[in-house]
Structures are given as C-alpha cells and as structure tokens.
C-alpha cells in the first residue's frame, strides 16, 4: 500500500497520492467498460483521486484510433456517469485516453503494448504503475494472462510499490476444476499479491458497512450467534430477465451467476469472525475460514438443501412477461436454472444449527438485495396473550440495494389503555443520512487497486473454497438435467419448493417491499 509521507497528504484520505498509473482495459468496447469502468474512472477524476499522471488504454480487436476511442469514452461518460461530464475535466483527461488494437492471443500486440507503456514512461520521465483490467469473456482469460506474462507486462516494476496488477472480472472458473486451472494460469504469470479478483458487491458502501456495523457496535457481537439468531436470509432478487445475455446466462445459471460469488461475499461478511486487524490478509483469512466451515449441502430430489427453478410466463409491473424458454436464443431443451435457493449450515461454535437461507433469481417480484438477521423470539413469559404468540422476533435488515440502509424491527406498545403490542421499525437510510453522492462500487474498487489495497478483492483460496461448496451441486444438477427443476411465475417470489425449504424449520421467506 501507498505510504503517505508527503506533508501535503497529511490528514487526507488514504486514497490520495496515487502513483502515476496506466490502466489497460481488455474488452474496451464491452458493455461493462461503457456502463461501469469508464464512468468510474471519470468520477475518480472528478474527485481528484486519479493520479496526476494517469493514462487509460483501451485494448480491443476492433481497429480504432485514439480519437475514436476518446469519443467512445466521452459517450460512455455522458450516458452512464452519475455526474455530468465537465468540459474542462474532459479536456484534460481526453489526452490521456489511448487505444491499442490487438488480438487477445497474438503476442505481437502485447509486445507493442509493452513498448507503448515504456514510451509513456519516457515521455513523463517517471515509472508508471500498470494495471491490466480483464473485462472480457472468460474464454480469452488464458491467452491474455499468458501474453501479459510472456511480454513482460506482468513483471513490470515487480516487488515495488508500483508493480503491475491484474484485475479479473468474474466468473473465476465454472467449477472447482476450471477455477483451479485459472488460478494456476494466473500464478504462472503473477504473484498472488498482484491479482485483484473483482466482486463488485464488495465495492458497495452497504457491504463495506457490514464490517463497520458488526465490529464497531458492541451491542451486536454478544448476540451474533446461535444463542440469539433464529435464521439469516440473504436475497439477491432481480426483476429483469436474461435480456441480451441469454447466450452467456444459459451456460451459467443463477448459481454460477449470483450465488457462488455475490451471496458468498455477503454471507462471509455477515458470519465471519472478527479479524485480528483490518489488513487485507487478515480480513480475507477470516472470510476463507468461514467458507471452509460451511457444511456440504445435502443433495436430493426431495428433502435436500437446495432448490432450483426456472421462470414461466407471468406479470411484471402489470405487463406480461414471457417464460425463460421463450426468451431469444434459449434452447428448448435447456435446464438452466434462473432461480436457486439454499439452506446452509456453518459448522463452528458461533453458528452451529443456525440456517442461512440464500436465494437469487431473475424475473422476481422486484429488484432487491438484502440480508436479514432474524433473532429468536423472547421467551414470552411476561405478556401472556394471544397477540403475543404471533409477535415476530427482532430483525436486523441490511438493504444492500436499492434504497441502501439498515432497519431494526422491535416490538412496541401501541398507545392506549390496553396492552397492545406491535412491531415497529427503526430505520437508517443512506440517502437521507448521507445524501445521495456516494461513490459507485467500481470507483472504490479501481482506486483501491491503484492504491494497492486488496481488502475488497477476492483471494485465490477464497474463490476455491466457494467452488468446493458449489461444484457438487452443479454436478448433481447436470446429472439430473431437468428432473427436479421447479418453476415459478415471472413477478413472483420464487417457487413453492423454495417456501417449503424454510417451512421445514417453521421459517418463512421475507417478502421484501418498498419501505
């Protein structure tokens, strides 16, 4: 990490004082680059967080000039940036936006890229940190990584504060075997500390706030265990269907697309032990420990711990929505799941016997990501009445998106002569407490990588631990094909089988409305 010794940086955020950096984006014409990466880099510029010497090089197969790529970048900023494009800022940044044409598997293009970066260093008379952002389909990860190694780009300024870094977008493999293969390929070209595997959920303010809420509020730690927690529910629901991603999605499914990565990040932050320090390695050590403690999932067509389903036609916002099999480019014999739900148990002293329910799906009633910690009901010896029998226990709800915030539900007496009790909500909203000018996830992640802070990135062993849990499920489903594949209507909260998973323990899925 950057060592701030400069007097002018004294008292300023640790994200200030980034070294001269060039970011090379592989997949420069891709959707993620336009929607997220370019706007993120631009907004870092707005906040004066980009290093004073900064270059962005787009790398792609399509031949483009620097000027043409600058126009693409400007258009992306205008369309997707959370803040409008500033003429003055853009005039300064524009000159630093370059394009490099090349195939992903042609070593010559990487050699010329190496020369180009060397030339930039010669121009500015300073060494440049090189960050290689791989935002391409996973089929080209291998040639890119190998060529970064062969060309020497991976080893630039190695073992210094500005050694090369590589950022990889998910998926990190399709299963345990391919994840290990990918890690092997990476490790042949890069040291682990140079590798930044992105899960953009970790860049969200609310996800980072999980650690703060857990470990700076002492009232929670004593009750954050099996003695007081009834169950934990993690929901990542999407309203949209597969849209233009049908080709990729049908090869992936809900488990690979969302559950194996995003929900596991949420789970590990909620359930992990307090780390010994806030260093990236100590935090990630605890996350890996947590993942390793998750009990293997019971797999069965009846009575197991996993449910998968596919959406059928329904209504979303009053409009008819077609079934998954009717979407473009979905083969008629597909058995890809668009919804999955699991019941997990963590075998450690803290969580023994507490079910962690996880669900994710497309075409659900609404888009929402939340974590709900449901506490056990009080013993009920004080107020003996019928209404008390149906009172819920307390809940701590962390809404990750949209309407980021935290709610705590407790029981209260309704004013009046009678003893009437009903749940009430204490609520903290990011938007009304802090205003709406919070950085986007990718802004945080990119600047962290520039500064050399890997806390919010996934370590290699973390990815492997997650795949160890999920690969048996995928293999089971591959054997079963469409046997056991349930269905749910578009616009609903999932299949009945998913409700039954919780009913076995007298629990119910939360219906998550606007609040």
């Amino acid at each position, binding site marked *: 990490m950057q060592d701030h010794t400069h007097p002018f940086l004294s008292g300023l955020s640790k994200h200030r004082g980034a070294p001269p950096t060039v970011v090379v984006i592989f997949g420069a014409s891709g959707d993620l680059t336009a929607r997220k990466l370019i706007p993120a880099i631009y907004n870092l510029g707005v906040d004066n967080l980009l290093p004073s010497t900064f270059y962005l090089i787009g790398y792609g197969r399509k031949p483009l000039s620097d000027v043409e790529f600058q126009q693409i970048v400007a258009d992306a900023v205008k369309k997707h940036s959370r803040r409008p494009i500033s003429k003055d800022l853009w005039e300064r940044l524009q000159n630093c936006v370059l394009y490099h044409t090349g195939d992903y598997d042609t070593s010559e293009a990487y050699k010329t890229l190496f020369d180009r970066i060397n030339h930039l260093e010669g121009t500015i008379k300073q060494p440049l940190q090189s960050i290689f952002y791989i935002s391409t389909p996973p089929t080209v990860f291998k040639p890119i990584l190998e060529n970064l190694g062969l060309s020497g780009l991976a080893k630039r300024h190695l073992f210094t504060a500005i050694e090369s870094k590589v950022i990889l977008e998910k998926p990190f493999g399709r299963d345990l075997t391919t994840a290990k293969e990918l890690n092997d390929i990476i490790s042949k070209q890069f040291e682990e500390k140079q590798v930044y595997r992105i899960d953009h959920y970790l860049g969200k303010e609310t996800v980072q706030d999980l650690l703060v809420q857990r470990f700076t509020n002492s009232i929670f730690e004593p009750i954050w265990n099996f003695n007081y927690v009834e169950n934990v529910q993690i929901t990542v629901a999407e309203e949209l269907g597969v849209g233009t991603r049908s080709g990729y999605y049908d090869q992936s499914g809900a488990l690979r697309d969302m559950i194996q990565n995003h929900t596991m990040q949420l789970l590990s932050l909620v359930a992990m032990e307090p780390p010994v320090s806030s260093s990236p390695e100590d935090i990630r050590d605890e996350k890996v420990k947590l993942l390793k403690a998750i009990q293997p999932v019971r797999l069965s067509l009846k009575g197991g711990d996993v449910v998968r389903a596919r959406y059928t036609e329904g*209504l979303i*916002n*009053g409009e008819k929505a077609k079934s998954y099999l009717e979407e473009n480019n979905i083969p008629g014999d597909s058995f890809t799941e668009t919804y999955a739900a699991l019941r997990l148990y963590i075998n450690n002293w803290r969580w023994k016997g507490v079910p962690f329910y996880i669900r994710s799906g497309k075409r659900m009633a609404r888009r929402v990501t939340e974590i709900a910690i449901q506490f056990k009901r009080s013993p009920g010896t004080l107020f003996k009445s019928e209404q008390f029998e149906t009172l819920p226990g307390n809940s701590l709800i962390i809404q990750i998106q949209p309407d980021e915030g935290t709610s705590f539900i407790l029981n209260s007496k309704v004013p009046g002569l009678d003893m009437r009790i*009903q*749940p009430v909500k204490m609520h903290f909203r990011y938007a009304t407490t802090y*205003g709406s000018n919070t950085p986007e996830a990718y802004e945080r992640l990119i600047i962290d990588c520039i500064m050399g802070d890997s806390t919010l990135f996934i370590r290699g062993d973390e990815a492997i631990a997650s795949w160890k849990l999920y690969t048996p499920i995928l293999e089971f489903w591959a054997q079963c094909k469409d046997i056991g594949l349930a269905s749910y209507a578009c616009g609903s909260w999932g299949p009945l089988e998913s409700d039954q998973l919780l009913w076995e323990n007298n629990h119910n899925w939360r*219906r998550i409305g*606007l*609040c």
Partner: protein
Amino acid sequence: MNSLLDILPGETLPISAIPQALKNVWGSLGTSGLADSKRPDFRAVQMNLIVHFGSTISNQSALDAFNTALQFSETHPCRIIVLCPDINDSSTTIRAKLFSQCYIGSGSKNISASDAIILSYKEKESHFLEYQVSIWLDNDLPTYHWLHGVDAQKIGSNYLQFLTQCTKVIYDSALAQDHYSSVAWPSNNPLKDLTFFKTLSARQSLAQFLSAYEPNSIVDNLLSIKLNYSSSLKAEGLCLLDWTEEALRSCCQISKLSHAIKYEKELTDSSLGHNTLVLNFKYQNERFFRWTYTPEKLSGLIEANLGKGNVHYPLQILPINLQHALNLAILS
C-alpha cells in the same frame, strides 16, 4: 361504465412508475430550499392497509371506504393499497393510480402524510395480485386486508393465499352474504368483522350491567334468548346474539350448568317506530332481562330482575362509526 379506479381520486400512472412516483411524492415535502437530508421525514409508517373492493360494490360505498381508510391513516400512518376488480371488458390487465395527501392537524404532533396506491385488476389475473402488491408493502410491519364486499366464493378461489399472508382480514358481515363461513380459513383464523366492532358500545352496555351478577345467577333457569331486530340492524343484531351466546356458554361452564339455552331471532316491523334491537332473556321463574337499543336516539334501556330486585336502567349508547370500527378491528 366507469370502473372503481376511475371514480377514486389520484393520478393515473403505469405500474412500473409507482416506486419512483412514491419517492417523488415524499421528495417534494418539506420546506423548499432545504437539502434532502434536512427535510423532515413526514413519512412514518406503522402498518400496511389493503382495501379490497368486491365487484358489486357501489361507487359511493367504495368512496366512503376509501375516505375511511384515509382518515385512519391520519392517526395511524400506513401504506394504503386499494384493489378494484375491473369488470369492464378492457384489454389492460392492471391499471394504477397514486393518491397522496398531507394532513396538518392542530399541532406539530398532528402532521402526517398518507399515500395510497390504487390498482384496478382483471379478476382472471387475480393470482398475480399477491406478488404485485407485496413489492409495495413494508412487509416487516403488520398488513391488514379489508375485504369490502368481496364475494366469499371468490375468496376461496382467487385470494385465499394472498389473505393468509396478512396479519388480519377485516370484513363487514353487513355486506358479506354469508359471514365468509364457507371459506377455509387457516386455523389461526385472522378474520375480524367490522359490524362486530360497531357493536362495541352496545356490548359494553350489556357487559357493564351483566358483569355485576355472578355467572350462575345469569344462566340459572335461563330457557331462551330472543333477539328482535329491525331489518337495517340485522347484521349488528346477529353479531350481538353470537356474542351473547358465547358469553352465556362460558357462564354455563363456570357454573357447571349443562342445560341447553335456546337462541332465537325475529325480524321486527320497523314501520311501527324507530329501528331497534331488543335482547330478551326468558327464565323459567319470575326473573327476566330485557335490553333495548335505539341507535337513532343514541339510547338504550335495561329492564331486569336477576335476583336483586327490579331494575330500570336507561343507557346512552353512542354509535361506532366505520372509521372507529376499523380502528378497533385493526388494533384490538
């Protein structure tokens, strides 16, 4: 023919626009010039209230119920969802309106704001209602579902799953054809009858008097109970009779008396006078009890001799209006 959605107030908008419209409604509150974070948060919510109209309900009845829900929300801030079955032959599956109001009462504690999402839906698509509505509710808080004239048969076939998600289901036996007894409610029957709550003051008057007597002195030698009711008070009368029957059964249990008491009801010809309810306890011996209630006069009368001599006991019985009954049904 206008649908109920058309006669209720509010701004029509696409379903998909509702979340943003709700945010805009609340975003525009507060003193202008203040930053978002400094605006007072008028929007407190204690509960969700779903008002669900039957397909045969009149426009006026629907408007009255809607206004009642709004009045309720002034003292008990809630998210209101109004469901209107669309009996017209239009192609649109679901239409929506958004209504909001600020209520400013006599002091700073009497300021609140309400919003109501009004939905018109085709009955054949009613199985989607539950999911669509669920995204607008604050599901961590209780949800009360008020069935205003919904046919019992349709409950079983279309809405039961939806209703079992709710904390309480409120209906009015004065409107419902058969007290919803044909519906297979879950074992923790959440059903609350508005008419029953409208009889609160009447029940209080009976209970206040009768509780002064030991249970066995009320039921000893009691042969029959007869309710005489005017046609406009039939629902109230039947609620009273059921309540009386239940109370007398408990009295018998406590007294360890097992004789059967006959319960009768008779329609009174109200053209002869005011609408009344009369409850008569007939005993085998000289004891008697007669309770009369005339709502239009806000008065009642108890004439009785239950072993402590003759009693002539005038009563003031104030009626319970629909809003008060709704309060009671939800909060008790």
